[in-house]
């Protein structure tokens, strides 16, 4: 079906496509500054509105998932590190290794077969009820959980073997404060960075998972917009996520300097006088890769 000449001209006029390219570019840049990306070509509403709507969904998903990941990974990782080589440690390491090795799209479709199709517990896709959230969150949970648990564990083993923990024992401090007061706060420094990375990945839209579960987040929006060549939306989506990641790095940066008095930086000073660097600070070597793990594997013993 072809559009009539008249409606084509009207379309070009509305979207300013008759102006010289240079003018189009300049006015586009000027609009960007105002967060005005123009209208979505596919839907006749501002691209930024479409994107923000998607982003709100993704943000909720990311926040819930990361909160669960952080809580569980830190507690279980610390306990695993406290009894290195014990039954709990072996189980935790084994499952976290598998978790961090599994392709999430595969887990997602296996989960759909088992829990939606065969057992009928959860809906396969869409949103609406609380039950719609269970499967996307669970699947998204697995990989960051596996990764962060292993890093918490490795980092805690180092911290628990440190000299200051020996001092605390010599002072007669009990086991629980030793783990959760002395060791954990030191062990968290490298963990914070990895948490930031994983959270950024989720904020970027869990592209595959959102597509599989028909979740109306920014990842699915972005894939669809690319396939439909709706580039105003793609641009808006990239800018919004970049801004979100920027803000999150700032938070990580501040968190890091609060946790590490030796960094010698007043965390609030940073907020006002200095732009953050873009990943925040020097990084332990295992940080940026997708899969990582503890220093030594209890599986090997």
């Amino acid at each position, binding site marked *: 079906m072809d559009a009539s000449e008249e409606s084509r001209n009207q379309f070009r006029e509305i979207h300013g496509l008759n102006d010289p390219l240079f003018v189009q570019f300049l006015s586009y840049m000027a609009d960007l500054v105002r967060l005005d990306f123009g209208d979505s070509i596919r839907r006749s509403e501002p691209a930024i509105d479409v994107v923000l709507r998607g982003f709100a969904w993704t943000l909720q998903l990311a926040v819930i998932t990361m909160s669960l990941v952080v809580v569980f990974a830190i507690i279980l990782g610390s306990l695993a590190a406290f009894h290195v080589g014990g039954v709990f440690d072996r189980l935790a390491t084994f499952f976290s290794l598998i978790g961090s090795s599994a392709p999430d799209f595969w887990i997602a479709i296996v989960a759909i077969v088992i829990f939606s199709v065969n057992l009928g517990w959860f809906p396969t896709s869409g949103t609406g009820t609380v039950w719609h959230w269970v499967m996307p969150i669970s699947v998204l949970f697995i990989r960051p959980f596996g990764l962060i648990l292993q890093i918490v564990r490795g980092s805690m083993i180092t911290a628990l073997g440190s000299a200051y923990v020996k001092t605390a024992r010599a*002072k007669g401090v009990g086991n629980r*404060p030793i783990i959760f007061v002395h060791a954990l706060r030191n062990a968290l420094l490298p963990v914070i960075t990895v948490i930031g990375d994983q959270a950024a990945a989720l904020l970027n839209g869990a592209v595959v998972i959102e597509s599989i579960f028909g979740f109306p987040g920014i990842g699915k929006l972005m894939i669809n917009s690319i396939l439909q060549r709706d580039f105003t939306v793609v641009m808006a989506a990239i800018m919004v996520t970049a801004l979100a990641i920027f803000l999150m790095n700032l938070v990580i940066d501040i968190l890091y300097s609060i946790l590490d008095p030796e960094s010698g930086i007043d965390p609030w000073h940073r907020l006002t006088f200095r732009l953050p660097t873009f990943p925040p600070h020097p990084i332990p070597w295992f940080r940026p890769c997708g899969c990582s793990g503890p220093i030594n594997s209890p599986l090997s013993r």
Partner: protein
Amino acid sequence: MDNRLLSVKNLSVDFHTSHGTVHAVRDVSWHLDRGETLAILGESGSGKSVSASAILNLIDMPPGEITQGEILFEGRDVLTMSSEDRRNLNGHRIAMIFQDPLSHLNPVYTVGFQIAETMTAHGVDKAEARSRTISLMQRVGIPEPDTKVDAYPHQFSGGQRQRIMIAMALALKPDILIADEPTTALDVTVQAQILALLKELQQETGMGLLLITHDLGVVAEVADRVVVMNAGQIVETGTAAEVYHRPTHPYTKKLIAAIPGDGAMAEPLDSATKPILDITGLTKHYGSFVALDAANLTVLPGESVAIVGESGSGKSTLAKTVLRLEEATSGSALFEGRDLVSMNDKELFNLRRDIQMVFQDPTQSLNPRMSIFDIITEAFVIHPEILDKAQWKTRVCALLEQVGLKADHMYRYPHQFSGGQRQRIAIARALALEPKLIVCDEAVSALDVSIQAQVLSLLTGLQDELGLSYLFIAHDLPLVRDFAHRVIVMQAGKIVEQGPVAQIFDAPQQEYTRNLIAASLSPNPDIQAERRAAARQLHGVDA
């Protein structure tokens, strides 16, 4: 039953490692009474701190295992107590301080929190713990305790950190204080202050002090009795004076004989000879900080010049500047008449053959991935004019034998050697370039006393054989006394005094030099007792 405060009976501890079982201590027995100071003396690997760790339940099990023995505290065997009961003893009745206070303090909590924690862990409420923390900090000599209580460990100096550790340990007035190498990483003057503080606090509280050390000087200064350990066993026990004057076991005799500071001092060389190194006004600034301030000194051919000073005195900066590892801000350093400060890259490359360096920590100064052959022949790779490739092997053999190693060591890797052997390898590497001057930066301070003596006699032997000059940087005065022809004393970037070794030790001109010499401990308990008496008298006169 005995009514000793603490006695260790027939204790044996094993460590199960992947290389087999290590018997860390075997059948060790000793005891400690109230108000008394017992020193456990031993070199690295002697197992001297294992029994102390066992008392406080600090040995990780596995890999550790207590195979026999008992530890009686007020007549009760702590090894059979529940872990909760043992935790209640720690910090409350028995406390411990460690070497290297920086790593033994938690970097992310304030010192106030950490001192108070000793009390809160044993049921003292928070507000009271804090006020007691402040008075404790005052007592151990931390200035401005009201504000410093909220500072973090990295904001203190090394000596202050050890004072904080002491405050932490003594918070609940324990019956026993275990001090594991409490002054090892500290400057001599700071060491003297910390030991004096420990003695004072012992007199105040009447606690038993268990001191673990490798330093006979520390033993002579504070110990009533001493237990000498070697390879996991006790070889000798007795009062400090008995053990020093009448050692019975061959190991103890060897240990005492190896202590530097007793030999004849070297005669100064003829100062009319043309110096090999002539430094004038050498200065190094880091930003506004003056690390080295207008240093003037000379080194004669075949002479050993020692530079002594405490940390931050600028002695290492001086060495680095001479080696052009750091660029001098101003001044000159004439090596055989040519100013090495202003040399260009090519001249500098040729100079590298003439000036070499031996570093402090031989573990770090050898590339772990290179064989000994590769490490030594690197000199010939970089400077191919020294030697034809066909002769490398014979030369490496000769060098290894010259430094007291075997020729077949050349295919091994650094981690297969002991600390002393590694330092010999580092010396062989320096000799491969046939240098005229070797800069030794704390070259023996990481080694055990008996090994130190061997490496020093190797250096002296090489000097006689090859006519080498040494610029010998050290913080340990007795060591320097036996080794150097001339001594230069540095403080805060400045040279405060220099002269022949006999003059510096027998008739020091400057107050700082006198303090430095007075602060270094003699291994002879009688001499230390005399010095203490003299100091008391001085105080009495003052007061």
